[in-house]
């Protein structure tokens, strides 16, 4: 039974990651090859860049005879990435999956439902962590001698590490599920609680790093310092490099004991949480609430309501806006950080404006709201299809909602940056205009990707907003393109093109691309929307 449950969960979780195009329409070999090349390229870029990072570390730690620290750092980095990857999945997958009712109606003990979902989350976390751990291992195997014992220890540690991540994400998910049962404005509370949890996590992480730096500055030996601050990571490093069974057991205890305790807590009232009636309290209608609006207004408002109704959608697709806004407000009250940073980076003053504008644009490019907007229509897609609304209007409303969500944080950040860096009129305008054009382009681009990689049938929104090919491509390509444009200028074009001209060129570039996508939608969207129905069958 457990095997069947896990198989269903995995199929749901991974089907869209490897799904090429809509079902019902056979993918052409050319498309398969192109997608394969794209995925290969992305994996290659991630693997090679992580590999370079670890090669640099390996050289440094080999010179210092601190081989264990290499794997300790790999463990810490994998933990951080795994946590970011899995943090909001737990609540949605464990407590809010749409097939919970179906499963509960079958003769399946609730602990098996919990166990099957845990296995899926474990595997997904393992996958996230592999992005770090695999390149770290490959670099080691290329440049350092290794034994079978070491490899076995590495595999065991890699298999144990996800449990440590799941402790935190399960705890957050369980707390969010408790909140959901008890309060009326649960979405707002879930968002605030999740942001507070993330902030606490990063503050704790940065405090630990500062503590480590302080210990080292005070002359502590690095081994003692890491052992004191990052105990599990220390034992992971020792277990792998010295094949210490004791360290492996200590590391295993750090991973499995807290995980076991959290599982006990969740299992104690899992059935109760699952069988609690959801959807919020009933509200008595007392008249009013009837307003007339335009068609596009209605469609856009519907998209915005969809966005604000789902904490998992908000947190996964637009968290960078919160980070950008939080960062800008932080800098407003800590302007010394900027002076220190620009001094450290030894950046020519004429480039500061360009870098700031591109940084804001990069943050707006990493908003992936539109890349899930079509898939999230899911079983309700029939509504739009049967109403007198064209596919183009529906897509433009989704893009408009994306841009509307991006606009306030972009404008506030742009104004704060303008004040802090005393921008001239050009940069004041560009610090808002370029990120806004970037948001417009990525809104349309996200929809384009989602049209080609739809997932109309899902059990949990997490499958769409976090694990889908569409969201992954939108995030990766957005950040790569923006970072690439910045690096291209600083490395190659700075001597030929003035920064002001370059920023205008990028703005024009995004506007032209947006126009081309619009034309594509006008020509193709209707047919593609119709095909999406067949994707559901």
């Amino acid at each position, binding site marked *: 039974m457990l095997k069947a449950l896990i198989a269903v969960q995995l199929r749901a979780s991974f089907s869209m990651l490897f799904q090429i195009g809509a079902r019902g329409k056979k993918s052409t070999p050319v498309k398969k090859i192109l997608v394969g090349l794209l995925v290969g390229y992305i994996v290659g870029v991630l693997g090679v860049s992580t590999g370079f990072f670890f090669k640099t570390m390996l050289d440094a730690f080999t010179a210092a005879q601190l081989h264990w620290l290499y794997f300790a750092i790999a463990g810490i980095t994998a933990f951080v990435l795994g946590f970011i990857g899995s943090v909001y999945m737990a609540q949605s997958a464990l407590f809010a999956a749409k097939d919970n009712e179906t499963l509960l109606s079958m003769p399946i003990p609730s602990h098996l439902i919990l166990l099957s979902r845990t296995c899926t989350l474990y595997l997904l976390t393992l996958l996230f962590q592999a992005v770090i751990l695999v390149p770290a291992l490959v670099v080691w195997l290329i440049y350092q001698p290794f034994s079978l014992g070491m490899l076995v220890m590495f595999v065991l540690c890699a298999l144990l590490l996800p449990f440590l991540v799941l402790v935190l994400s399960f705890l957050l998910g369980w707390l969010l599920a408790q909140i959901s049962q008890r309060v009326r404005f649960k979405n707002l509370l879930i968002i605030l609680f999740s942001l507070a949890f993330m902030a606490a996590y990063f503050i704790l992480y940065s405090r630990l790093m500062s503590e480590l730096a302080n210990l080292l500055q005070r002359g502590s030996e690095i081994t003692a310092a890491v052992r004191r601050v990052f105990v599990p990571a220390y034992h992971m490093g020792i277990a792998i490099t010295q094949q210490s069974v004791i360290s492996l057991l200590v590391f295993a205890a750090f991973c499995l004991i807290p995980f076991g305790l959290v599982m006990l807590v969740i299992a104690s009232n899992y059935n109760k949480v699952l069988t609690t009636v959801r959807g919020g309290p*009933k509200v008595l*209608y*007392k008249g009013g609430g009837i307003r007339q609006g335009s*068609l596009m207004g*209605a469609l856009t408002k519907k998209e915005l309501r969809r966005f604000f109704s789902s904490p998992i959608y908000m947190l996964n697709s637009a968290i960078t806006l919160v980070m950008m806004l939080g960062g800008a407000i932080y800098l407003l009250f800590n302007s010394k950080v900027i002076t220190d940073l620009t001094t450290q980076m030894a950046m020519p003053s004429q480039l500061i404006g360009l870098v700031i504008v591109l940084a804001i644009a990069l943050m707006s490019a990493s908003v992936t709201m539109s890349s899930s907007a079509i898939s999230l229509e899911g079983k*309700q897609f029939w509504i739009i*299809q049967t109403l007198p609304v064209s596919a183009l209007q529906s897509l433009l409303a989704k893009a408009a909602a994306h841009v509307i969500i991006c606009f306030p944080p972009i404008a506030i950040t742009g104004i704060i940056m303008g004040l802090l860096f005393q921008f001239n009129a050009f940069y004041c305008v560009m610090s808002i205009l370029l990120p806004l054009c970037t948001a417009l382009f990525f809104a349309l681009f996200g929809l384009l990707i989602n049209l080609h990689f739809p997932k109309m049938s899902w059990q949990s929104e997490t499958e769409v907003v976090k694990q889908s090919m569409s969201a992954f491509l939108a995030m990766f390509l957005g950040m790569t393109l923006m970072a690439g444009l910045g690096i291209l200028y600083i490395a190659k074009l700075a001597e030929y093109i003035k920064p002001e001209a370059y920023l205008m060129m990028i703005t024009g570039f995004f506007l032209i691309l947006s126009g081309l996508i619009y034309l594509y939608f006008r020509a193709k969207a209707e047919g593609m929307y*119709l095909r999406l*129905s*067949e994707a559901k069958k």
Partner: protein
Amino acid sequence: MLRIEHLSKSFGNKKAVDDLSLHIKPGEIYGFIGHNGAGKTTTIKACCGILRFDEGQIQIDGLDVRQHPIEAKKRTAYLPDNPDLYEFLSGIKYLNFIADIFGLPKAYREARMLSLSDEFELTQDLASPISTYSHGMKQKLAVIATLMHDPKLLVMDEPFTGLDPKAAFLLKQKMRAICDAGGAVFFSTHVLDVAEKLCDKVAIIRYGKLVVEGTMEEVKGQESLEEVFLELEGQHA
């Protein structure tokens, strides 16, 4: 009002609808009957612009649904068998959304929403999120949404599933009222008693092909519709 000519639709190698032709005239309630997987829902979805079709032509009020999809949809209302509505909206917001899409004036929509909600006994629940609604309440809300803009053609897939007897009775009255006003109703059902009492015309399909079509008297003669249906199923088995 609805003219389906030589409609064919395949899913892979399986022909879901095979050269189907039906004419539903103004004033007619037209029942569409067939076993599970006969092609009823596929036909209905093709009429409403949810599914592409391979061959044939569908016209609503003289408008080709492929060439004039928006104009055709303005005249149509569709009620699916399982109404998955926007659960993140309240009932009133959902109805308001539909009214905005059809461009209904404020006074008209207000009167229409409230009178229909009162009739279907849903007014008190309009402020609640749709996620809190039962299946029947969602079905009622979907019915209200389909009736709000006074459609000329009402297309429904198993419309009585989930409705309580009073709401089902009310819906039958509304169907007749649409036809009396010059519109038409095309719906699929497995409840043959309902079809027999309600429909002016009926079509039975089997594996995507039209088996029999005509007025209720022409199709069933002296027998019951159930007997005719089972007889036809037996003949073609």
